[in-house]
């Protein structure tokens, strides 16, 4: 088991956002967490990368284990550098006043091996050739789709074993979303495990192998994506068919 979360309770001040959720992500798979607005999907991801404090929240109880080790022991920067868990945040959050290449360089901030960094540039540009064309352009001047590519490329720079994606399809045209997901599948095939958070359940279920449905802070359904897709409740609530 790569990532295993047990009875995680997270609260923002007096408001409890997660009421003890448990789920596992296995190595090499694409797992997805689907649910409506405010269900606690993003909260889960921010808790995994130990940045929940920045969002004003706090892990009350429960455990997050990565390869059998307690994640909550590690400081936030070690989660990225040592363990290789990276988060592609919601809304892309690229550094607008820096060029594409500088954005990628910052992503490798904690690394000192210049050769490895060069290789990773190539790896990113191979999956997103568009980024190489726009290498020296300011990130603010990229289109939404390109910015999302950059956000994903940025998190590839740390040779992550586990990539967490928060609503990558948000604000993108359908054709771009499809392209992006194809690329995510490619990254997954190269050996990066992916945990995907999506509101677009259709799409997420098509690419994922395993799915969890989260509702107001608790996981209500879990299984392979086929099972979840066939579930009548899910059909009614999320797929609209």
């Amino acid at each position, binding site marked *: 088991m790569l990532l295993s979360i047990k009875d995680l309770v997270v609260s923002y001040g007096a408001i409890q956002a997660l009421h003890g959720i448990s789920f596992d992500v296995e190595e090499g798979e694409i797992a997805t967490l689907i649910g409506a607005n405010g269900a606690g999907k993003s909260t889960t991801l921010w808790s995994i990368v130990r940045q929940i404090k920045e969002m004003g929240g706090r892990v009350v109880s429960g455990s997050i284990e990565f390869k059998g080790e307690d994640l909550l022991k590690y400081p*936030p920067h070690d989660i*990225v*550098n040592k363990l290789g868990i990276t*988060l592609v*945040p919601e809304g892309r*959050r*690229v*550094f*607008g006043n*820096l060029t594409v290449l500088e954005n990628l360089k910052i992503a490798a901030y904690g690394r000192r091996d210049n050769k490895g960094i060069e290789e990773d540039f190539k790896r990113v540009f191979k999956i997103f050739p568009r980024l190489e064309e726009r290498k020296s352009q300011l990130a603010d001047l990229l289109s939404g789709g390109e910015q999302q590519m950059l956000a994903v490329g940025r998190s590839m720079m740390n040779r992550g074993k586990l990539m967490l994606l928060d609503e990558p399809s948000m604000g993108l045209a359908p054709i771009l979303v499809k392209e992006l997901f194809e690329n995510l599948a490619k990254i997954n095939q190269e050996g990066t495990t992916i945990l995907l958070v999506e509101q677009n359940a259709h799409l997420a279920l098509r690419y994922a192998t395993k799915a969890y449905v989260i509702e107001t802070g608790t996981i209500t359904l879990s299984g392979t994506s086929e099972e979840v897709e066939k579930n009548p409740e899910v059909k009614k609530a999320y797929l609209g068919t």
Partner: protein
Amino acid sequence: MKRFGMPALIGISFLICIVPSWLGWFSNYIQFIITLIGINIILTVSLNLINGYMGEFSVGHAAFMGVGAYTSSLLTVYLLTENPFFGKAILPEELSILIFPISLLIGGVAAAIFSLLIAIPSFRTRGDYLAIVTLAVNFIFKSSIENIDAIGGPRGFMGMGKVVKAMDNLVSFPWLIFWTFLIVVFSIFIIRNFVNSTMGKSIIAIRDDEIASELMTVNTRWLKIVAFMLSCGLAGMAGGLHAHTVTFINPSSYFILQSTYILVMVYLGGMGSLSGSVISAVLFTILLEMLRPLDVWRWVATPLLLIILMLFRPTGIMGSRELLDVFPKLKKYFSSLQERLTNAFIKS
């Protein structure tokens, strides 16, 4: 431009500033203005690191300048001159040439240490706290100095003129302009290299999105402290120069008015533009001097100019661009010049 442009530019401005002063072609007044321009360049460039590149908002730069000013002038006056504050001189006057730059450096270090005390608590939190804290620091600095009677309190502190005179007696050379020039070059060089390094780019990343840069493992708090200390240290050195140029300092020389001037120069030049900072420091200093006949109306004319600037060019003179980005032709000219020079060099 990369190889020849900068050294050429530095050489030319060195010649323009120092040689005529040395030969006595420039009157004392013009020499004073040149020094003042240099000091303002250091202050503007250094504040631009915090307010422009890092996107924080420091409004108390004058306090750090003041720390440097008091530290270095206390040091030179204490060591080198006979004065009503400390009595007889400790070291012979001949050492003034050596002691003066060291005192500037110590002034800078003192300001940097002082800024560290401010930075540690204020960068714990995010947002606009730095503005409030630095504003308070300005008041704290003024009140503390005013209450230390041993160094003149509100009456101010003087004796730096003797030190400058001692240097001039020993070797007739425009020492103040010389050191100002060196520190200006040093400040621009160090800040330019800093903002072009990965570390400096991370500072811009912090400005764009602090949480995202933390996700990229950038140590935001530590980086902010480093940048703040660097900036305030340079301001401290500028303060030391200022104290020895005006030869009389009092706590209100380094109060809100001075802080505001530095802020105005930063915004006039453009946030995140070093060449903009240099241009605006030169223009603003000369403008203030030219408006001197207006007397009290100067304080009306200057803000008015700022309002006009904000109305018609809110990004400042340069925006966030550098000189060569604005004039691409100049860049081409310089690179072709460099090519020709290189070729000529190879042939010879």
